């Protein structure tokens, strides 16, 4: 079985998305990047991100990641912010009682997007 099945598939994404997004919005290190965004659209994006990080079906490419974050890089998005998101993701999964070894795998998948997100 793959990571996505191990973690619980679409149901796990549904369970995690609100907890994760609320953590991100309340995280003072990164909340400024979410000021004034359309929450309706943003929730769908968070879902797409979690699906990808959980190893689920997705068609997002490095180029999408670059384009989607370029305006934030201009506003100073850097490694510390990326780390904060990964930390919030880990805390979300811990809250949902996901075993540590799966959390580590999710973090590793998220890690593969770092260069694209930060536009390097």
């Amino acid at each position: 079985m793959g990571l996505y099945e191990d973690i619980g598939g679409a149901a796990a994404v549904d369970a995690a998305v609100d907890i994760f997004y609320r953590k991100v919005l309340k995280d003072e290190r990164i909340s400024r990047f979410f000021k004034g965004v359309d929450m309706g659209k943003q929730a769908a994006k968070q879902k797409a991100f979690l699906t990808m990080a959980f190893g689920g079906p997705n068609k997002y490419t490095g180029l999408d990641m670059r384009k989607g974050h370029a305006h934030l890089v201009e506003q100073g998005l850097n490694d510390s912010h990326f780390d904060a998101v990964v930390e919030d993701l880990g805390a979300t999964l811990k809250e949902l009682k996901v075993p540590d070894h799966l959390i580590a795998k999710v973090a590793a998948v998220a890690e593969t997007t770092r260069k694209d997100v930060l536009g390097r």
Partner: protein
Amino acid sequence: MPRVVFQGSSYEAAGQSVLDCLTARGHSVPNSCRVGVCQSCLMRAIRGAIPEKAQTGLTPTMKARGLFLACQCFPTEDFEVALADDVIRRVEARVSAIERLNDEIRAVRLRPSSPIEYRSGQFLRLFKDARTSRNYSLASVPSLDDDLILHVRRFSGGLVSGWIFEQLEPGSVVMISEAFGDCFYLTGRPRQDILLLGTGCGLAPLYGITRDALNSGHRGRIRLYHGSREAGGLYLTEQLRQIAAAHSNFQYRQCVSEGPPGEGHCSGTPLELALKDNPDLGGWRVYLCGNPQMVDAARMETFLAGAASSEIFADPFLPTGTPSTPPPQIDASASTARKTSSSAT
């Protein structure tokens, strides 16, 4: 072999998704991720059963309206579909009355020539002529009101609202569309608490939703906050007070954002006052209608206060012809008109 029917043509869907079936025939259907996540390819079922998988991740009201994700939809029987917000049906309606609600807002009561199926809180498109139309929210409740009731605010220079205020009178005949929108009451969780926040004629859908919920026997708390800059912008206050007097689970607060508190109203915006009264919205259902800035802010704040993102229903009233939207010429077929404005201009 199941067939997909779209805009009058019928195609064989040989194991294809509805999205692939239509785009392969040269139709333009918005799409992006193609794996059922981004919800760009939302379409609406007109006839035929929707496969369950095609509605994964949609809100309960979207499902109830027959919306589905075209990229995840593999029909097993003949299936007629439309773009999510296309007007596929228009009917004539006769104006039965026009009532003054306050200085700026009128209730327009309409009798359609053939029945229109709708849910309280949805909106419909009212056509001034073939090229000019606006969306207006419904304040009526299908099981309680014989008429369709719209609340129309007059905008200075408003092409359609000016026409409604100056030209329409009882007996006038107009064209209207079927009903749209995902911001409406659903039965099924009668003990859930409900928060309704609205500004200006954002009260229209909330008034319909409130009466629909109470009439359906909703048992949970229902809290309605209606805001305006000045007390003169509030309306239906007496009717709402009477509803509150008759239903112990319903409370109504009038919110005036400029100036001190006065008779019957509090000082502040609906959002501020609602969060002060109800700081924990975990488990609540939330409806937000009216001014788009208010709706955006409230969507964020009610979510942070604990409301689930799938339980927040919003209808921002975007003014027609603002720089971010195309000029105010909505095609008669309306295939390009997006679900944006309600009760504007």
